């Protein structure tokens, strides 16, 4: 029987479509989680009260913030889940090597990020409609420009993809050794407590400032892409050494 030779991208493409089909149920949980977030957002994601003269004002702010937040957690969990054994084993039933398996995973996570971000941002609109119908109140909006919508979706995709890369990396560590299940939270919270007791500024704040307070779009994109690349590369190099179906 003659041998077939194959190139990497051909395999990655096939695996990507296979994964879209195999992991489609993740999108069911996405919808569930976004609907849950909408429910929680219903009282407004923020509110401010003010008084002046003989009137008092109560402002309720509505935005998709919570939906995006929940989507981030969903993305994190999804990324961890696909690093687990059963999911890696599915790949090895068919044609794969460890690199193509990871690359197709990353493509799948990117797709999940795009779908999650677009639905999250659009869910903000659904929230406005629901608030309008159910609260029977006038809704004021500051910005609905198309340009902002596009930018919002783009930045959200970066955020979600960023989180998936962290999830994928942490999931990979856990697959390498179950010790990390304990080690990572202990390290994370340990440092937080330590810094709190030393009256130091927690590193989380610095991390948040580094990404979340970056107000130049270009710099933000660079920061996120570099970080994502680092996490995924680290995960791939760990996974490349990992045996399957032992």
């Amino acid at each position, binding site marked *: 029987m003659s041998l077939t030779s194959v190139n990497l991208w051909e395999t990655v493409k096939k695996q990507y479509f296979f994964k879209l089909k195999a992991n489609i149920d993740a999108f069911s949980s996405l919808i569930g989680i976004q609907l849950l977030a909408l429910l929680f957002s219903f009282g407004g994601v923020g509110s401010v009260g003010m008084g002046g003269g003989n009137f008092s004002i109560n402002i309720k702010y509505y935005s998709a913030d919570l939906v995006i937040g929940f989507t981030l957690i969903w993305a994190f969990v999804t990324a961890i889940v696909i690093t687990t054994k059963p999911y890696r084993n599915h790949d090895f*039933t068919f044609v794969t090597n460890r690199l193509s398996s990871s690359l197709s995973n990353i493509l799948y996570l990117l797709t999940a990020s795009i779908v999650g971000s677009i639905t999250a941002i659009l869910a903000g609109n659904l929230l406005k409609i629901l608030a309008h119908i159910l609260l029977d109140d006038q809704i004021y909006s500051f910005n609905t420009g198309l340009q902002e919508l596009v930018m919002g979706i783009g930045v959200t995709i970066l955020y979600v993809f960023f989180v998936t890369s962290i999830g994928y990396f942490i999931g990979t560590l856990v697959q390498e050794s179950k010790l990390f299940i304990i080690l990572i939270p202990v390290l994370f919270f340990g440092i937080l407590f330590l810094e709190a007791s030393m009256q130091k500024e927690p590193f989380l704040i610095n991390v948040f400032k580094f990404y979340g307070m970056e107000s130049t779009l270009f710099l933000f994109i660079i920061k996120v892409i570099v970080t994502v690349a680092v996490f995924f590369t680290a995960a791939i190099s760990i996974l490349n050494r990992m045996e399957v179906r032992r």
Partner: protein
Amino acid sequence: MRVIECTDLTKTYLRKNVLDKLSFSIEENKITGLIGRNGVGKTTLLKIIAGFIKETSGQVKVFSERPYNSLNVSINSIFVDDQMSFPPAIPLGEILTVAGNFYPNWDRELAKGLFDYFSFDPKSYHNRLSKGKTSTFNMIIGLASRCPLTIFDEPTTGMDAAVRKDFYRALLKDYIAYPRTIILSSHHLDEIEDLLEDVLLIKDGKKHFQMSISELKEWAIGLKGTTEEVLNFSDGKEILFKEYFGLNTMYAVVKNDFSEPLLNKAHLVGVEILPVQSSDLCVYLTSETKGGIDDVFNKR
């Protein structure tokens, strides 16, 4: 052409050598039976060949490539066992399509034919199948993918006798139509010996021997007669297996390197010369004690 070549292949788990300097090679388009007791490293060896796990030391070449992380090995080989895992979200019917996308030689007709013959429901899911059905389904994938190297690791787990017979028949027919290299590891050597061309016997992570099935059938003989005479004849030879019947009758299995006159002489003094079933022989060869399970009871 050599499809698989192993030199000093060693695999260590927790400082225990599961495979210990194993060297062998497998020729193209042969059906080889991989025989050995439980836990001698058959599955480990097959998983190294499939590229699932890494060798600790030594060399393994499949299609002249190291199988670990090789796409070419992956696309040209398939590893079938009862642990084969499929996404729970994809129904069985679609799994056939997915497998067809991955494997270039996939035979849709054959897959569909076997699928229907074993009355699978295309809408059912792999994780809802019974043990025997799981093995049957995996076997279908293994056969229809027509990989130049097809590895079946205990493929008949849980199958009932009828399905096992069907499977062996299907395997043989498809092999004749599309010859390929097949490795079959099974406990039931008696069932598969008609299929096999070669046998690779592994003991304690080492190659015990590798020979063709016809050689194996004549490799040993059984001597049955009075204890005295049997011991006399087998003097200086390694007794692979012995069993006592009554007070003074003994059965012993020894390597068949007797000359013709010697055999005639044995016949004259009343020692029966019996052929040894190759499956029995494999059991004798791989067992730790010479008396088999009887020893455990005799000592008490």
